[in-house]
């Protein structure tokens, strides 16, 4: 794939090593730690490289502690990389130049920037001043974003009186007031109920469409990723394992698909084995695992040979696949 434009996010051999205090448990360990501190080096991100084109929405997957947040922090300039290079919107993030900061935003699901005791509008007015947006323009933008987010009077109520979902929407509004080109979203739907999640999701898709913004999104909820991100980056133990479409990831993680058959009459197990690996056979319901490349042929064969009442082909759920990968800790 030859990119028509230059990438808006570029990571080249990005690495980060932390020094972490090593403390034994218990009182003795605490005292020893107080007198003589020992440290271990922990590699949080190792040699990660990828490119993201303007306007792309990319999902960033990985278990807790895989290095997602560290990578986001390097790309936003909050942390200096230990090695490698990052380039976002043409800037080196960790220099945190004002013109760079105006082009990006970071939303963290578990942290808030809005003032707890005041209506979001007050915080928004401060942000407008910080970014040098005049009153008329900031009114226009707040109105437009509030409409996209389906928000009304909530912006005038003290933040502490809002629900978690309403607060998250207000946070998004605050993070997007300066109309950034690059959005780094770290668990933006964390803790939200299903409806609120869906609302945030459709807003992000809408925002991406309308402003052509580039989005790099981490989420624990696979539904966020499947709904928004045609492309995913999968990171595990600090290393990049996959960069490509979600389907390709599924194929890589699960070379087989599951075929569920409902038969009109019981069938001998041995002859079923000819079509694929038999996962289960309970009465007249059979579940087979069949390699993707042999799937079409196997299915037509099954339909021709057996008294099939119902046939269903499906992928094992992606959560399960990724979960399995992280338990095994390997990827072929």
């Amino acid at each position, binding site marked *: 794939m030859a990119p028509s434009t230059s990438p808006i996010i570029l990571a080249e051999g990005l690495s980060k090593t932390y020094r972490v205090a090593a403390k034994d448990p218990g009182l003795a360990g605490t005292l020893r730690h107080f007198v003589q501190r020992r440290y271990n080096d922990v590699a949080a991100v190792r040699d990660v490289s990828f490119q993201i084109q303007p306007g792309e929405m990319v999902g960033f997957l990985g278990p807790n502690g895989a290095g997602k*947040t560290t990578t986001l*922090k390097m790309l936003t300039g909050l942390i200096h990389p230990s090695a490698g290079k990052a380039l976002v919107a043409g800037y080196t993030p960790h220099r945190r130049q004002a013109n760079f900061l105006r082009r990006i*935003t970071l939303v963290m699901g578990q*942290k808030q920037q809005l003032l707890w005791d005041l209506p979001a509008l007050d*915080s928004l007015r401060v942000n407008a001043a910080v970014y040098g947006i005049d009153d008329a323009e900031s009114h226009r933008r707040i109105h437009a974003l509030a409409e996209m987010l389906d928000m009304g009077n909530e912006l005038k109520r003290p933040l502490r009186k809002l629900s978690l979902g309403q607060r998250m929407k207000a946070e998004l509004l605050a993070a997007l007031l300066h109309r950034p080109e690059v959005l780094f979203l770290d668990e933006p739907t964390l803790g939200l109920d299903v409806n609120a999640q869906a609302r945030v999701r459709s807003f992000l898709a809408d925002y991406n469409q309308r402003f052509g913004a580039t989005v790099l999104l981490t989420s624990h909820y696979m539904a966020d990723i499947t709904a928004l991100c045609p492309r995913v980056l999968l990171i595990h133990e600090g290393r990049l394992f996959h960069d490509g479409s979600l389907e390709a990831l599924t194929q890589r993680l699960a070379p087989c698909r599951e075929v569920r058959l409902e038969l009109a009459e019981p069938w001998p197990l041995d002859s079923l084995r000819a079509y694929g690996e038999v996962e289960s056979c309970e009465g007249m319901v059979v579940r087979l695992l069949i390699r993707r490349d042999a799937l079409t042929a196997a299915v037509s064969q099954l339909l021709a040979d057996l008294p099939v009442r119902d046939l269903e082909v499906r992928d094992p759920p992606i959560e399960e696949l990724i979960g399995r990968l992280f338990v095994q800790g390997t990827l072929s």
Partner: protein
Amino acid sequence: MGNPLGRYLLTLRRLWGTALAMQLEYQANLLLEVVAAIANLIGSLLLLSLFYGGGRALGGWSWPQALVVLGVYTLLEGITSTWLRPNLSTIVGHVQQGTLDFVLLKPIDSQFWLSTTRLSLMGLPEIATGLGLMIWAAAKAGIRTTPWLLCQTLLMLLASGLLLYSLWFLVATTSIWFVKTWNAIEVLRAALSAGRYPISAYPAAVRTLFTMVLPVAFLTTVPAEAMLGRLTLPWLLLSLMVACLGLALSRAFWQFALRFYTSASS
């Protein structure tokens, strides 16, 4: 985008607007704070009148002259409650909660932001009393305030305010490494309370310490000297220099600390 100065001034105005709104959000709390501040003040005035009663002199300073020093000290205490403590305690909070990230991602100077976001009304009674005490005691000491004298005093008060800010900011900055630095700030406050009395009231060794190491002399004695019309030009210049040095140091130290900041990772 407008000019940067205008942007900073507008930001400041809105920050203070929200800071006041935040205090007014809890009426009862605000009322209690003001009552507490006034009661606190009456207590310390009573105590000092006992100390200084009987027309004693302290280190060559008459009772009214020494009261000018106390006035400056009270004013600085008020500034601390109104401006320094609310802001600099938020630095500690930001580091603990990891929300410093949001500050660092704004296209605005982080030191400016962290030093101006909060404003408390609690110190206002002390500021008023401090100023009143300075004016009243200077008159009692037989000083006729001329515009020149007033300019000098204001300049020295500015220098001492900036110096005090720098000391607070330096200590608050260490929270980047130690996270909890509230005790260090209490130690600083206790040490600075020596500024209640004229510097010459202390033994020579302590005097040197309070001038060279912990610049207590520049905080209260020098502005009081200016008010009393006794400040010499070298001291005036020295005081300005110390204030600028303090500011530069706080700035350099903050930049240095930021390089170490890696934020509480999730």
